[in-house]
């Protein structure tokens, strides 16, 4: 039984404009999946479908083998969720929010709760509305992890947070991973966080999964080839199998090729007769920009 399973999810808020179209992937215990995509690519929608807040128009989602819309309580008790927005009730005090969550989740771990309270040092008597953004998010994270969920769904957890709070967030999640083998499904625009945390990256683009690869594979199995424009016809480069994206910049073609740098250079030399190509592996952020930045 897999922890999360998306199967051919299709979802459109407006007819003819699908946000997700046949999106599918799955994760097992201990997997950390970083969900990437441009703004409006459907990351939040997908995570809300996983939470059962939205029903896909086609396809199925299974958490622990259960449909989250058919068995909402059973699923939600095993999931921790931190939303992009501040959704904790502002009129409650921090201690009350925690107490409420403690009641709602049977598997609540008070030791972990106490540890995180000390770590985050959020004043327990403060009302949620008086907290800073970072503090409120920390309380949300505490409430999401203190019941030791089997799946942690984080929707843009680091959005708008300072680097120190972000790192704190990351370390808390990693600790949970270490102790429980929790599956983490998170969306983020902070590539550094994705690179630290994620074991696998799913890139959503044009309502579909553009990439679904282990992070290490992205680094070793993909490269950026810089070829002088004069050396080769762009169309031939684009038509080369394994070429994922191509754009021109500063008199050079920048092509993303599904090959390691060395293999890529050999391929370019063998297939297109280009000797002066420079091939290099590239960080996730660059890859993101090269793959989805130029497209619309």
């Amino acid at each position, binding site marked *: 039984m897999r922890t999360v399973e998306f199967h051919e999810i299709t979802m459109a808020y407006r007819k003819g404009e699908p946000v997700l179209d046949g999106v599918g992937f799955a994760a097992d215990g*201990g997997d*950390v999946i970083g969900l990437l995509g441009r703004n409006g690519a459907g990351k939040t929608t997908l995570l809300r479908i996983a939470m059962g807040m939205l029903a896909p128009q086609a396809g199925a989602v299974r958490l622990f083998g259960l449909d989250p819309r058919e068995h909402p309580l059973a699923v939600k008790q095993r999931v921790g969720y931190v939303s992009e927005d501040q959704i904790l009730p502002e009129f409650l005090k921090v201690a009350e929010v925690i107490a409420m969550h403690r009641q709602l989740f049977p598997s609540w771990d008070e030791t972990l709760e106490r540890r995180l309270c000390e770590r985050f040092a959020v004043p327990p008597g403060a009302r949620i509305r008086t907290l800073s953004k970072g503090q409120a998010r920390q309380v949300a994270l505490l409430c999401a992890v203190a019941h030791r969920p089997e799946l942690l769904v984080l929707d843009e957890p680091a959005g708008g947070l300072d680097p120190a709070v972000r*790192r704190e967030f*990351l*370390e808390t999640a*990693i*600790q949970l*991973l*270490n102790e429980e083998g929790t599956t983490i499904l998170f969306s983020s625009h902070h*590539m*550094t966080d994705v*690179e*630290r*945390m*994620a*074991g696998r990256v799913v890139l959503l683009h044009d309502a579909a999964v553009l990439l679904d690869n282990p*992070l*290490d594979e992205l*680094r*070793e199995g993909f490269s950026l080839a810089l070829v002088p424009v004069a050396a080769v016809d762009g169309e031939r480069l684009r038509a080369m199998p394994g070429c994922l994206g191509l754009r021109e910049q500063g008199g050079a073609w920048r092509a993303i090729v599904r090959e390691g740098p060395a293999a890529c250079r050999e391929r370019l030399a063998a297939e297109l007769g280009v000797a*002066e190509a420079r091939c*290099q*592996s*590239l*960080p*996730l*952020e660059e890859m993101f920009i090269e793959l989805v930045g130029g497209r619309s």
Partner: protein
Amino acid sequence: MLIVVDPHSGVPVYRQLMDQVKFHVASGLLKPGDELPSTRALSTELGVNPMTISKAYSYLEREGIVERRPGRPLVVKALPGDDLKDRKLEQLGESLAPTVTMARQLGIGDDEAVDLFRRLLAESGDGGAAGGGLDESGDGLPGASAGGSDGGASSEEDGP
């Protein structure tokens, strides 16, 4: 243990880890029988996914650099002297490989390149020439940009 990870470089984190452990073993900072930190400890310390650490460890194990014993931390495997030397050469070779490519692309002749290498070795000064010049690591840790200076300094003591 001196391990620094730059998740933002193009090199996978697990490979950065492997390279650094190998370098530390080659340079002698990690001696046979030394224990490596647990996956858990290291992942919390570095703030990276524990799966990445265990992946690096299992590759290291497969390459015969470390040894896993049930219920105990990983330890560095003992190596015969020749193997250690081979490993050092291998390390240097890995960082020289891009230089070779660059020399080819720049059209620098083999003799010129070797001369340049010799000259640089001579300029860097102290010691090592008698040992064949190959155990001098040059600059930097492989994989990560930081932390190399310590590795370079400590390699002095255990030179053959």
